[in-house]
């Protein structure tokens, strides 16, 4: 089906795009329709993704092909099912076991990432050279002052008064420069997204209609 020389899929795509864009003017039934459809379909999409990409290849298929060889997979399955015990008052506490395992593991993983990848790494990097030469030394000093003043801004054990207050104020200026700069830098990305949509509407949808 190609009404006006454009595939029906493109028509649907364009219609839904316009429905969402209409929200900029105000909330309206078209947006509400698209929003509800979006909520439903996206959840359905993830049901498909989870079944197809996680449960089938990592759980069902191994169990079906070689049950005893993969019998340990029953452990995560049991943990997954335990999440639902929350709704049965007598065994509700078992749901917390699944949660405890899930949270515990990731907390451990990310703890090391923070301490190793973030703290050690960034600290090492703050050891800048004061002998870089010329203007580079000055820039390195600025970086050093910036890191220290921001860290002092995040210092909770003392009231920010006097010298501490001044340094922490400097930290705020560094933060403001960073936020302003990041904001300004990002505008670009956001416009790119809009461009992608507009270019679809103009080049993929409207142009073929006009030329047909």
């Amino acid at each position, binding site marked *: 089906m190609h009404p006006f020389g454009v595939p029906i899929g493109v028509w649907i795509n364009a219609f839904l795009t316009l429905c969402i864009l209409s929200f*900029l*003017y105000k909330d309206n039934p078209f947006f509400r329709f698209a929003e509800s459809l979006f909520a439903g379909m996206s959840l359905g999409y993830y049901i498909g*993704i989870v079944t197809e*990409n*996680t449960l089938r290849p*990592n759980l069902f298929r191994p169990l079906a092909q070689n049950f005893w060889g993969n019998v340990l997979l029953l452990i995560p399955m049991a943990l997954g099912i335990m999440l639902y015990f929350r709704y049965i008052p007598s065994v509700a506490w078992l749901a917390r076991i699944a949660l405890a395992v899930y949270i515990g593991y990731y907390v451990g993983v990310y703890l090391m*990432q923070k301490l190793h*990848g*973030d703290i050690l*790494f*960034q600290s*090492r*990097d703050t050891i800048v050279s004061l002998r870089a030469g010329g203007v580079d030394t000055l820039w390195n000093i600025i*970086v050093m002052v910036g890191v220290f003043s921001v860290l002092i801004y995040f210092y909770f054990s003392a009231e920010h008064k006097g010298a501490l207050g001044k340094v922490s104020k400097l930290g705020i200026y560094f933060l403001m420069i*960073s936020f302003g*700069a*990041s904001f300004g*830098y*990002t*505008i*670009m*990305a*956001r*416009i*790119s*997204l*809009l*461009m*992608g949509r*507009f*270019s679809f509407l*103009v*080049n993929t949808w409207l142009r073929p209609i006009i030329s047909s």
Partner: protein
Amino acid sequence: MDIQKLLYIDRRIIYLLVAIGALIPIIRPIGLPVVPTAPVKGLFNKIDTLGPDDAVMISFDYGPSSEPELNPMAAAILRHLFIRKVRVLVVAIFPLGGVSMAIQQLERVSQEFDLQYGVDYVNLGYKDGGQAPMKAMGVSIHDVFPADVDGRPTDEMSLIQQVVNYDDIDVVISLATGVIGEWWANLINAQFGVDVAVGCTAVSAPKYYAYLRSGQMIGLLGGLKGASEYEKLLIDRYPEARELYGKPEEAKKSAITGMDVQSIVHVIIIAFIIFGNTMYFALRRSQRR
């Protein structure tokens, strides 16, 4: 006075002007100049020293929502690598759509060159598990990807036979949204010492600058501007690239055209900020009287 009204102008007027500013260059491109910056040159110059004996891994770590920014980047980098005959291994770590991005871009660019699959380049496809496969490739790429994206066994491919792990790879380039590019920089570079460059959306670029400064990354392409700078470097250096980007259907998709839209909308937003501040000071002055 009406200054108050002007200050709290209906946001829909801003929306309308932004929309018009974005539409005009799409309907009729303008062509404004581009100046390459150091973080982009960092990656470009590195690749410019590589040749047929070298290998580069590109990780497609983005989904459809970041296409407009990262597709031109992927195309430009792939073209550069293929022009220099560097061998390319493509992987995908991002679960939602990374692999289809890889297929799309590789299909589009590889047909412009005379390449042999499995020898000059290979698409290993998606691997679940985030950091786990990334780390495991430090030992053996083949073990992580026993089959390529289409299920063909990789042990028969000369490229995978020769490129065992990160030791045989000159640069890993992650085209990333969100956190995966960071993992490459702070996990894989830190653990295996392989050079990492990241092409990211403009929004994550500021955070990546910290990694760039610390030497965890050798290059950084931020958003469409980074891509357009890379295109510019490529077009200036290689006549075959100039020819490629000269084709009208490629020009339309290029980051350089995208920059036209960027420029106009940026100017509109800056004009609004200046207007807002002018009104604000005018209001303050009138209130002081």
